[in-house]
Every structure is written in C-alpha cells, then in structure tokens.
C-alpha cells in the first residue's frame, strides 16, 4: 500500500467520522467511558510520537552526539513550562539543538 492510498484511506475514514453522528444521531449514544477515552487519544498519540521521535534522533546521530537532542528537549520543556506556549518548544529547542550539535564532537 503506497503513501497515497494510506492518506486517502485516513481521509475517507476521517470524513466518515465527521458524517457519522450527523446521519445517525437518533440511533446512537456515546457512553461516558468512550467519551473520556476519546479525550485521551490525542495526548497519548502525541506523547508516543514525541518520545519515539526523540529516541530515534538520539540513536541515529551516534553516542557522541546523542546528548544534543536530549538537551534540546530539556530546554524545550523548561521553555514551555515557563511560558505555557507549546511553540516555545520549537523556538528554544531548535537553537539548543544546533548549538549543542556544533559543540559536541562529531
């Protein structure tokens, strides 16, 4: 299955989700447990993607430079917790990554 088909399938499924209750509102009710679970999906997915992405970055650059992504994440976390803005993670984390990468032995 190519990337095109995957994206098409996700798009079609997402559209059907959007249409679902508009077409079936009188027949289906959402349980409270499913309602709660749906609110946890995005944070769980984001956390998993972030952790996986950072871990992959650390392993792909070699042991000598693995500290650079970790330093970037640490700086990003501090910036976000201090400012409350998720975009601070990029604004602080990327420069930190560039600086630490240039300082560490290659």
């Amino acid at each position, binding site marked *: 299955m190519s*990337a095109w088909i995957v994206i098409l399938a996700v798009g079609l*499924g*997402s559209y059907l989700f*959007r249409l679902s209750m508009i077409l079936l509102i009188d027949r289906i009710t959402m349980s409270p447990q499913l309602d709660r679970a749906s609110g946890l999906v995005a944070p769980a997915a984001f956390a998993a993607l972030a952790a*996986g992405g950072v871990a992959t970055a650390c392993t792909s650059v070699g042991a000598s430079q693995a500290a650079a992504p970790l330093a970037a*994440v640490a700086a*990003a976390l501090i910036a976000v917790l201090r400012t409350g803005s998720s*975009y601070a993670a*990029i604004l602080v984390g990327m420069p930190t990554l560039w600086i630490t990468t240039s300082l560490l032995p290659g």
Partner: protein
Amino acid sequence: MINLVANRRDVAAGARAMVPWLVGIVPFGLVIGLSAAQADIPTLAGWLTGPLIYAGSSQVATIEMLDNGAAPVVVVVAALVINVRLILYSATMARHWRGTSWRWRFVAAYLLVDPSLAVGLDGYGRRIDRGRAHARYLGGAVLLWVSWLAAIGIGATVGAGLPTWLHLEFVIPLYLVGEVATKLADPALRRTIFVASAVAILALSAPLHLGMALAIAAGITAGLTVRPVERLEPTHPSRQTTEVPR
C-alpha cells in the same frame, strides 16, 4: 440552504471569530508542511493530508509514521484512532443540522474540526436565525480551511530547499513535546502521557512499528484509571488546546 449574499455579515462575523484561532493554527500548518517536505514520502502526498484528512494531529501521525516505515494498516488505524473525537463533534453539531439539506451536511461535515466546532457552536448559541448561524459557521470554517492549506503549502515549499544541518526533522518531535508539556497539569492526561511515552520508547523496535499503537492504547488505559474530576469547560479560544484542524 443558506443564502450567502443575504447573510454576508454573518459569514464575515464567523471569519472574524476564527482569526484568534489562526494565530495558533498557521504555525502548526507550517510545521506540518515542513515535516511533509522532510519526510520520505512525496511532498504532494504530504500536502494532500491537508485537504483529505484535514485534522492536524492525525496528519502529523500519518506523515511521521509513513516516514518511519510503519506498516500501512498500522498508520491508518493509528490515524483514525486519533480522529475518533470527530464522532463526538459530529454528534454535537447533528442537532443543529437536523433537517438541513444533504448538500449542506456533506460540506459542513467536511469542514468540521476543533476551531470550526467552537466558532459554529458560538453562532448556534446566539439568538439568531438558524440560517444566519449556518452562515457564521461557514464563514469561519472556510477561512480556517484556506489558511490551513496555505500554511501547509508554504511550509512544504520552503522546507524542501532547506539544508540538512538544520535538523528540521526534529521540529515535529519538539512541537509534540511542547503540546504534551502544556497538558501535564491534568492528572489523567499526565498519566496518559508518561505511560504512552514510556511504552513508545520500550517498544521502539517492535515489529511493523506496532509500538505506536501499543503506546497509545497503554496511555489511554492508564489515563482511564484516574478518577475523573468535574472541570469547567474552556470558553475562549486562548484557553483551548491548540489542537487544530485536528
């Protein structure tokens, strides 16, 4: 069917109500465009996640998982799991769109995502004619759609020509770190985030990249073990999460 000419003031009002959302949405679109350009998939395919999926979280997940070589079925399932909340949005808007034409429902449903839901509900909550409220929803939703696709397109165009030393592939993980960091105050979300992160790292070498799906499931399960507390619903865009067109 709504009359856009007669209700042009409501269309404009909806667009104006969407502007605060765009401040958070446009940078996210640029980031997705950048990641699409950097990912090991055709840039056009990455951009097409905008009009086809039109939900930022699952667009990110789809692009990143395809780039990491995840099995297609895993990508589709994970991306759709992320979008399950769209069913809730659909249920929310259904009562406002009951009795409308099929054409309206098909178009309005396509544009339904976090910010358009918020702007739409604001309109339906006002004591105005339902046709005017539809126009307000459409005005905000169309502005969001155009801005979103433009932002992704600009990000993808600029991103393709940038040097590799910039390590732009790290922008999305950092953005996601920022997103989850803003949710750590909530006990259920905190447990969800920690467990999902830990499982994702432990399952990094899982076959077919099933670690992602496993991490999401583990995170949700862990979050559900936290007793829910009554919370006030946010009422202003600035207090919402920046999950967009997600």
